[in-house]
């Protein structure tokens, strides 16, 4: 449709198609298009296939299996039987499960606030450190590089009642040496301390990156408006950091729920399951109790919790920074 014809002695229409110009039929177009498209889609599939293959076989298929195994029992030494929701019943009545949930909570309460608040503090303070800042930052980040197991081994040594540095230090100042990992009271806090030590560098960096990303103009405007540094912190930094902080909390919680390495190497869940975590118990369900249905149910529960948290995370991200 181009210029419509006008009134008047000669229409102002401009000829589009020359008469007698046959066009390709729609049917022909469909046929040729399909061939063309298939070629293109084939190429795309070629690029995607390797990755998709692994994704399906080693991630999605096991996920489906978890769902199925939830309703079964046996597998390793007994034949498989369907037991419906009995696994879920068992889980909620298993005292160890309850204990692991409690432990996870306790871990979270000790680790998350300490790590995040300290991390934020360090980040804030790091901004004022110019000379030697890079070196100091690198030193703070070093523990993050250590695999959790190695960090656990290091702290195992530090916490040794006879040879460890902590008790050595206590002896030097004349205090009574403590039992850390062997004590039902101190084991969990000790492991928690190790986790904090290991991750603080990461969070300091995370918050530092967020702080650096803060728009300069807001600070300048506040400065011009007469705000001093404390006020600037309270009225500019804090509100903007709120979203960053919330995100950090969710992220830290997700990490926290999956604590395994440190517990395995330092205390193996003990003493008396005081450091048993959820994932640690899943591992044991498989290799020591051979109760795969039970383990699968726990795994599914973990999955639900973490999925829920991840969705919260995504919702947080989607919301724009509104001050």
């Amino acid at each position, binding site marked *: *449709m*181009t*210029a*419509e014809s*006008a009134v008047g002695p000669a229409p*102002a229409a*401009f000829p589009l*198609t020359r008469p007698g*110009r046959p066009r*390709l039929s729609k049917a022909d177009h469909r046929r040729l298009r399909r061939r063309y498209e298939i070629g293109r889609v084939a190429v795309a599939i070629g690029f995607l296939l390797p990755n998709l293959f692994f994704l399906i076989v080693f991630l999605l298929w096991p996920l489906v299996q978890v769902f199925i195994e939830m309703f079964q029992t046996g597998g390793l030494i007994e034949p498989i039987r369907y037991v419906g929701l009995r696994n879920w019943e068992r889980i909620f009545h298993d005292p160890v499960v309850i204990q692991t949930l409690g432990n996870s909570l306790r871990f979270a309460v000790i680790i998350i606030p300490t790590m995040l608040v300290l991390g934020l503090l360090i980040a804030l303070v790091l901004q004022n450190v110019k000379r030697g800042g890079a070196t100091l930052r690198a030193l703070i980040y070093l523990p993050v590089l250590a695999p959790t197991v190695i960090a656990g081994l290091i702290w195992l040594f530090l916490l040794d009642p006879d040879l460890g540095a902590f008790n050595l230090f206590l002896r030097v100042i004349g205090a009574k040496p403590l039992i850390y990992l062997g004590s039902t009271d101190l084991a969990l806090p000790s492991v928690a301390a190790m986790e904090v030590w290991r991750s603080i560098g990461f969070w300091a960096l995370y918050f530092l990156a967020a702080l650096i990303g803060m728009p300069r103009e807001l600070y300048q405007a506040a400065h011009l408006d007469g705000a001093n540094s404390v006020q600037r912190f309270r009225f500019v930094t804090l509100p903007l950091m709120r979203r960053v902080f919330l995100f950090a909390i969710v992220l830290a919680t997700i990490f926290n729920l999956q604590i395994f390495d440190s517990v395995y190497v330092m205390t193996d869940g003990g003493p008396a399951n005081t450091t048993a975590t959820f994932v640690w118990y899943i591992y044991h369900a498989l290799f020591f109790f051979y109760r795969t249905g039970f383990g699968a149910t726990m795994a599914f529960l973990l999955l639900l919790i973490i999925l829920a948290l991840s969705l919260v995370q995504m919702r947080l991200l989607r919301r724009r920074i509104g001050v």
Partner: protein
Amino acid sequence: MNSSTPTGQPVASEYDIELVEVTKRYGTVTALSSVSLEIEPGEFLVLLGPSGCGKSTILKVIAGLEDATEGDVYIKGKLANYVRPKARDVAMVFQNYALYPHMTVETNLGFPLRMRGASKAEQAAEVARVAGLLSITDQLKKYPEQLSGGQRQRVALGRAIIRKPTAFLMDEPLSNLDALLRVEMRSELLKLHRRVGRTTVYVTHDQVEAMTMASRIVVMRNGVIQQVGTPVEVYAEPTNTFVATFVGSPPMNLFEGRFGSTNGTPVFSGQVTVTLDGRWNGLPATAEALLGVRPEDIVVAGPNDSGTLPGRIELVEKVGAEEYLSVVLEDGASCTVRASIRVAAREGERISLRFPPDAIHLFTQEGLRLKTA
């Protein structure tokens, strides 16, 4: 006039590129609406229109970078809709040049030949030839980021030329250059076209570029072709008010009113009242019409001349050897007049204007050209 059979056997066609009722939709948005074009060999066809009118989309459809939703595309008589871009034998110069940043100018230029299996010697020879043609021989070893805008543009041109394609497609190649460079490159491009002689389809939103460079102009708006014609045709006989006001700077003045005859003489009355000459005889009276006259055609008359329109100068914009006068006429309508500085206009002065009869355009209320008998 001729077709190609669905199997793609080319049949002799006098056109290099043809679009037959091509429509392109992106979801619910229609970028091109039943566009038909025949592009003649060797011509310099300019697609002109405002942003978003679909001109770049036409280039992409011709090149195969986008698929037409409906319609046929023929290149040298052969159906091209389902032919891969590399097989269509067209070359494109992109708005942002799209030079490969990690390759030297030399490699960039030779790349199309390399992909087609040319020997190293052939590549080198052609690269040297094209570099000489575009005066970039000194830049061959450099990387794109080391070049100026104008140089990058030449490399982009060179990469297109080196393939000796059926047609060149250029997507606003000059819009990223500064004004001075743009004028220079415009004439260079024209000289190049004369030398190399290949069909060129050139997209721009700058009507000056279109008017100076094109052998034919296609004016587009919202995916619909408004007019196809030589620059003179588009300027002197615009098919609608969009074309009339888009081409020509400052834009054509338009006045509302009605067309009728008084005692056998055709007259336009409304925001302005103008007696028209005999060429409009035979046109039936219309209740609503538009009268158009270009600022450069309006004549500044003496106060005592007959048949003039009195008015008052509101604003004078000095533009070098001319001035653009913004004049308010008796009935409140305003118009723009291009006058030479010799008129010595001053703001607030009274002025008399005359619209020469050959310079008057009439349009329907919807904006379509009314033709003289």
